[in-house]
């Protein structure tokens, strides 16, 4: 399976300061890849390098097997980087017409993408009269104009109200149907958790981890409600498959692999323990994120106080 985006040691330095520090990432075909990190982590700079807007100081990258920023790559990529940028004196439709002419896209495609982002009714209005949500939707329409294989969206829900965010999430999900790959950057963890298949977590220009969302969230303990708890704890402690057992607020918290759940349940039931619940304590992505970047956040707080 060829990667849609592949970066190895991608670096951007301004003077001595590395804004992006040796990032490696892989985006697979057809997935929604979340690029997660706090403001100033280097997300936008990385995405700009993948689009050829910024030249890297080091490392290599390919987009759809091509050099970032090459005509071959840009012709198959749609993007919305750091907010929608359009001509204020043109209507939404005319803005798309300019881009369609640039990209050699047939005119009828403009109607299709306006329909897709629910802007058909306002397409002839000036861009300046649009709400922020409409501007973002027009940005998405522009990104889809070339019917691209890859869509790169930088903070697409920035500044949107809850309804706008919900609409944007729906749009991103729709985009990803039909084998299209979406790379999405965000500092909103709930958003990434809801939309993305895999995430890369970035902080201070460094990639902390790259993993499936489920894998990241699923690292939690098994929660077992069993009576009597003491007997259950003793039995589980004796099991070699169980790494760790503790009783917390009347429930057992067990560190063990999912494939041993059946054995754990059988051992407990055989020992006369009543088992009423066994479930995985899936963590919120937010918890995972703060676990990974806790050191950085504390340092940032200290710096804020200086």
């Amino acid at each position, binding site marked *: 399976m060829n990667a849609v985006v592949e970066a190895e040691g991608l670096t951007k330095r301004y003077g001595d300061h590395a804004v992006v520090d040796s990032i490696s990432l892989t985006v697979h075909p057809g997935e929604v890849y979340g690029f997660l990190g706090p403001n100033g982590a280097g997300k936008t700079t990385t995405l700009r390098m993948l689009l050829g807007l910024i030249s890297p100081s080091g490392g290599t990258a390919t987009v759809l097997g091509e050099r970032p920023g090459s005509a071959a790559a840009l012709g198959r*990529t749609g993007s919305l980087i750091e907010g929608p940028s*359009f001509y204020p004196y043109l209507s939404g439709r005319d803005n798309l017409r300019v881009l369609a002419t640039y990209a050699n896209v047939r005119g009828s495609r403009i109607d299709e993408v306006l329909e897709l982002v629910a802007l058909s009714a306002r397409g002839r209005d000036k861009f300046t009269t649009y709400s922020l949500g409409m501007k973002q939707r027009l940005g998405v329409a522009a990104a889809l104009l070339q019917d691209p294989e890859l869509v790169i969206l930088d903070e697409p829900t920035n500044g949107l109200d809850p309804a706008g965010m919900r609409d944007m999430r729906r749009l991103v999900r729709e985009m990803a149907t039909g084998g299209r790959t979406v790379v999405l950057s965000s500092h909103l963890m709930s958003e990434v958790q809801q939309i993305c298949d895999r995430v890369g977590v970035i902080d201070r220009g460094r990639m902390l981890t790259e993993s499936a969302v489920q894998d990241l969230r699923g690292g939690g303990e098994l929660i077992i409600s069993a009576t009597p708890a003491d007997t259950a704890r003793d039995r589980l402690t004796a099991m070699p498959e169980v790494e760790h057992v503790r009783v917390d607020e009347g429930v057992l918290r067990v560190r063990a692999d999912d494939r041993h759940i059946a054995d754990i349940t059988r051992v407990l039931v055989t020992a006369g323990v009543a088992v009423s619940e066994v479930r995985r304590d899936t963590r919120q992505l937010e918890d995972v994120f703060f676990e990974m970047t806790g050191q950085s956040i504390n340092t940032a707080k200290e710096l804020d106080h200086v």
Partner: protein
Amino acid sequence: MSEIFRVTRAELFKLVRRPAAWVLLATAVLLSQVFAYLIPYLGYRGGGSDMLDGSSPEEILASTLPAQLVTNTIGGFPVFAGALALVLGALMFGGEYGWGTIKTLFTQRPGRVSVLAGQVAALAVVLASSVAIMFGFGAITSTAIAVGENEPTAWPGVLDLLQGFAAGWLILLMWACLGAVLGVVLRGAALPIGLGVVWVLGIENLISAMAGSMLSALEPLRDVLPGVNAGSLVSAVIPPGMVEAPPGVSTSVDGGRALITLTAYVLVCVAVAIWSSRRRDVV
């Protein structure tokens, strides 16, 4: 090549719908009409000759007739219309940075060189149209004056008209390209407009005046200035013996050298703009 053609089409579409472009064209036409026709004609009708360097009313009237169409149309190009063209170039290229649309354009299929080349081509087409429109207004007004005053309506020869048109177009293109390169290098429109207008209306005149009077050592510098060469090119293509040379029109350098200098300015500006936009990050 087809990429550049597509960009040119898109840029023309934008320019035609851009209010600022029309305001600048209207201002150029208005200035040309007021200073080339309205004021001289009012002077003639008032019978006064003091206002135009002691010329007789007949000479003043003759300066507004169709025979002087080339002079009256491009006489203001070295300074006033040139400044407006510089503003257009700065707005067109620098505005892309101000609105952030440069990143939208640079993430479409055409490469940066094609984008810049297409934009310059669109600018050249718009300026050629503007020069034609200004000639058209001049033709209408001068013919109306000639008919109203029972004067001859004979126009300049076709070759003179073509020469005047080409010279006017090159002058405006040169100033617009200077505005464009400032817009690209400074990544905005406001500062290039400010710097450019101060240069066109102030610094060039200052250097020219100093070189012509107290500091002749400045003559070599004066002779490569864009405005001086623009004025010299106008001087080379208009008929001699007019009432009073318009501001900026001079004979500091000969027409051939002026033509080469202005062409060199255009080429250098385009090259610098392309080099700058290819080399620099879009942040």
